[in-house]
C-alpha cells in the first residue's frame, strides 16, 4: 500500500489521524502485518472453529481437560 492510500484509508475509513510522514513509515509495518495475515489465511477453518472459545475459561472446556 503506498503512503497516499494509507493516508486516505486512515483518514476516511478508520478516522485515524496520521502526522506528516507517518503514512510512509507505516507502509513498512503494514508489510509485516501482511505476512502475519498471510500465515493465518492459509489455515483451513472448520465450521466448528468458534472464535469465542476463550482460552481456559469456559466450563465446557474444563470438562474436557485432560486428567492430571
Amino acid at each position: 500500500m503506498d503512503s497516499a492510500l494509507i493516508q486516505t484509508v486512515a483518514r476516511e475509513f478508520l478516522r485515524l489521524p496520521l502526522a506528516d510522514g507517518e503514512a510512509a513509515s507505516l507502509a513498512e509495518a503494514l508489510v509485516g502485518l501482511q505476512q502475519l495475515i498471510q500465515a493465518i489465511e492459509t489455515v483451513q477453518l472448520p465450521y466448528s472453529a468458534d472464535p469465542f472459545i476463550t482460552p481456559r475459561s469456559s466450563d465446557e472446556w474444563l470438562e474436557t481437560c485432560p486428567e492430571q
Partner: protein
Amino acid sequence: MSGAISTSEPAWLDLTTASELIARRELTATQLVELMLARIERLNPQVNAFVTVLAEAARAQASAVDTEIARGRWRGPLHGVTLAVKDIIDVAGAPTTGGSRTLGRSIAPRDATCVARLRAAGAIILGKLHTHELAGGVTSESELYGRARNPWNTDYIPGGSSGGSAVATAAGLAHGALGTDTGGSVRMPAAFCGVAGLKGTFGRVSRSGVLTRSWTMDHVGSLGRRVCDTALLFQEVAGHDPRDSYSSRRKVPNIIDGLSENIRGLRAGVLTGAFFESELDPQIGEVFERAVQTLGTMGVKTKAVTFDLADASYAAGTIITIAEAASTQDEVIRTRPEEFGADIRKQLQTAEFISARQYLRALRIRFLVQQELEGLLREVDVLLTPSSPALPTRSDGKTTLERLARFARNTRPFSVPGLPALSVPAGFSAEGLPIGLQIIGRPFDEKTILHVGHAYERASPWHTRTPPLAN
C-alpha cells in the same frame, strides 16, 4: 538479631529461607528492607529496574511484620520477604504509569488483586518496576523512563515487557517479582536475565487492577531466582477473583508439596520442525540439547514432536494481541497520539488496519491450536523448547513486529491457547548472556512444569550464578 547487617547475602536468599530466618528472628524484616533499599540506591542507577521506590511504605510494612513476628505469628513463606511489581500492576498509593506518558501519574486507589494477596501473605512491596510502554514491546526501552539494562551486560536489553521484573530479581534488588505475560513477557526476560519465570494457565491469576493490553491473552506471572520461588508466588496469587471476568473457578491445588519428588518416567515432547529450528541461534541450540540430555539422564522419557500450527499460532497471537491493544487505546490514539512512544504508536496504528474478518480468523485459529496442543499433551506430560531462539541484542531503541517475531517466537504460540509455561535458566552464551529452557504443560497443570523445572534446576548449576555487578 539487631543492628545493621554487614553483607549482601540476605539479598540472595530464596523466599522460604528468608522468611524462616525472619520467623526465627535471626533476621528482622526491617534489616532486610534496609539492606534491599541500600542495594536499590547503589545498583538501580546502573540497571534502571525500579521506576518508583516505595521506601517509606516498605519500612512501615517491615515494622508491622517484625511486630507480628515478635508476637509469635508467622504467616508463611512470604512473610517478610521483599518483592516488587511491574508498573502496570496497581499498588495502593503509588502511581501506575505503564511506562507511558498517556497515563500521567494517577495514584492507584487500591492494590491489584494479586498484590493484595501477596500483602495478605506478609510480603513487603519495595516498589514498581520498569515495563516496556504499556507492556507492548520486548526491549524494555521507554521514552518515559529510558531503558532497563541487562545486569549480565548493561549494553544489552533485558527482554520485555517485564524487563524491570527480571532485572530486579536477577540483580538481587528484590527476592522476587510479579510481571505480566501476553506473548512471552515474563518468560523471555526471565531467560535473558537468568532467572525463573512462570506464566500460569489463562484465568488462573486475576488481572483485576492490572492495565490491559489484550483481554484474551494477558496473564500475570511470577519471577524468582529459584523455581520454588516462582511456585510460592504463584500459589499465593492464583485463584478465582470475581473482579476478573475471565478468572477460572477451578480449585488451585497445593503445588509446593511434592515439588522435589523424582521425575523419572515423565514424558517430555521436544518441539522440532522448521518453525522451531530455522531461526534458532546455534549457541541456544547446543544449550537446549544439553538441557534435554540432562532431563534424559534423570529418567525423563523424551521424544521429538511437531506442532504443525506453530507458525499460524504465532501470527494469530500477534494479530489478536495488537488488535485488542489498539482497542484499549482507541480514544488516545485518535486524540493525543503524540503521547505514545514512537514504537507503540506505530504498532497501534498498524493494528488499526486489521479487519474484523482477520481478527475473527485469528480467534478461530486459537480453537484449532488448542485442539492440536491438547492432543500432543495426551501423548506427553510436558513440551520443551528454548525460551527464545535468539540471544538478547545490544540496545538500539527499536521495537518492531519483526523483532517481536524473533524474541517471542517460542513463547507466543503457547500463549494463544493459554497453556501454563515456565522458563528456567539453562546456560550461558559465549558472551556471558543467559539462555532459558521453556517447559510447557497441560491446562491447569502448573504443578508438573514446576516439578520438572525444579528437578532440572537441582541438577544444573546455572541458577547459582549472579551477575558480577550485583555482588
